[in-house]
């Protein structure tokens, strides 16, 4: 479904992404982990079409993409951002926010679609005409997910979707994302610095360090410790240690 080959992104004189390649099968979920500055978010933004200064090849559903994306691309590929407090227009009601993708793509039946979308992300109908500042962080992120799903995309790009949320809310949102993936047959690419979160949702994981993709492995391999690159091993060890010291000692 998604093929990236030799992707390079440069900001001025700094090369943030130094030629990476990976593939994601249709319906699969791929996680991109790394620390800040590793370039993972940059890759996602280049994939989304938000960043136009990239070199290399990006293919979505077999179609090679150019820096300027077509409207059809935006119907098939959507993104959920990290900060629930900044990803919703402060002056628009939830209803207006959710109807925007439909209006842009000329899709009708707006009222019914909105009601369905809210139900799908487990938001009460009472929320429909509220403004973002009247919603909690978890509710805002659900609206962001609903917005991403409005036009019926096939690919969902997730940029640290739960990093800014409370732990209990994070669990709900992760469960929701897993369920939506199953229900709609979506392809996910998720970026995070939290290994446990990524391993929960993704089956294949790419590890980035300083702009390079240093390892590609399955989530099972990561859990079992079958890592090849020292950076991966270091990240894994740290995650295990912070999770539960007793478990870390035995792993």
């Amino acid at each position: 479904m998604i093929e990236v080959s030799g992707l390079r992104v440069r900001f001025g004189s700094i090369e943030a992404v130094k030629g990476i390649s990976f593939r994601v099968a249709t319906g699969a979920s791929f996680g991109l982990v790394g620390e800040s500055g590793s370039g993972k978010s940059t890759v996602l933004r280049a994939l989304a079409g938000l960043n136009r200064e990239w070199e290399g090849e990006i293919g979505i559903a077999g179609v090679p993409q150019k820096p300027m994306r077509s409207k059809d691309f935006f119907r098939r590929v959507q993104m959920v951002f990290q900060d629930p407090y900044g990803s919703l227009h402060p002056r628009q009601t939830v209803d207006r926010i959710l109807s925007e993708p439909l209006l842009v793509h000329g899709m009708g039946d707006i009222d019914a679609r909105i009601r369905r979308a809210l139900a799908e992300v487990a938001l009460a109908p009472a929320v429909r005409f509220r403004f973002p500042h009247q919603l909690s962080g978890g509710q805002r992120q659900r609206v962001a997910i609903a917005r991403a799903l409005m036009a019926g995309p096939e690919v969902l790009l997730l940029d640290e979707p739960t990093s800014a949320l409370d732990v209990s809310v994070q669990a709900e949102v992760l469960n929701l994302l897993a369920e939506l993936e199953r229900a709609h047959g979506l392809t996910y690419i998720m970026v995070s610095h939290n290994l446990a979160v990524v391993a929960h949702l993704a089956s294949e994981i790419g590890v980035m360090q300083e702009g390079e993709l240093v390892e590609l492995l399955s989530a099972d391999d990561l859990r079992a410790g079958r890592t090849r690159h020292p950076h991966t091993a270091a990240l894994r060890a740290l995650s295990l240690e912070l999770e539960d010291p007793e478990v870390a000692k035995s792993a």
Partner: protein
Amino acid sequence: MEVIVRNLRIAFPSPQGPVEAVRGVSFTLGEEKLGIVGESGSGKTLTGRALLRLLPRQAKLEADRLEFDGIDLLEADERTLRRIRGKRAGLIFQDPKFSLNPVMTAGAQIAEAWRAHRGGTGRAAHGAAIDLLAQVQIRDPKRVAGAYPHELSGGMGQRVMIAMMLAPDPELLIADEPTSALDATVQAEILRLIEALVSRRGMALILISHDLPLVSHFCDRVLVMYGGRVVEECNAASLARAKHPYTRGLLDCLPSLARPKRQLAVLKRDPSWLDP
């Protein structure tokens, strides 16, 4: 040095009447590391700030006892409070981007903190600043001392903040989500640094965070707050055997790298947790 808090209550005015954000928190702190854990709205940050009387003006603070080393903080005047703040108790915030002065170099800020509480010449303060930067394990203290906050990474900025707070050699350090804005690796480094400094100097530490495993890893005792109250108090080592359903819920809903879960347990909030 002992901090005693009994029945701390903090309320804010609202069009619907006063809203209680902290509803009767009590604890004692000696020379140890205490973690206060809670989600947003639990009142943990307000509790930490109340100890230094650094609440917003409209907040109403009440307590049966609020003492720092025998000094009654409720009755203390501004002068007494100023002698405690900074000099005897320091506060580290979450994001150094917002807590460091953007138009002063790191070294200048640390030197200022040093001189404000210890006096001395500018040169002595500058030397002390470089020394403190080395103590927070910055490899090139002279360069960092001359750098501005926006030129430093998040982790370095936090180290500068820690150096600034340690300059007057306080007895208590309150760290309010000091690493939430940082990567896991840097997070661990900073917390280990704080741990080491606190042990070496015989300081007390209050670590406020939303990250339960993190806090249990770096603290001796943990307080879990929910809805303005302390719902659980236990030793960090025995956190896995926590009794309160909220704490158990927080522990169970985390994804685990070691143990895959098909679905994450969702925290069911029981309204009875809000009652005493």
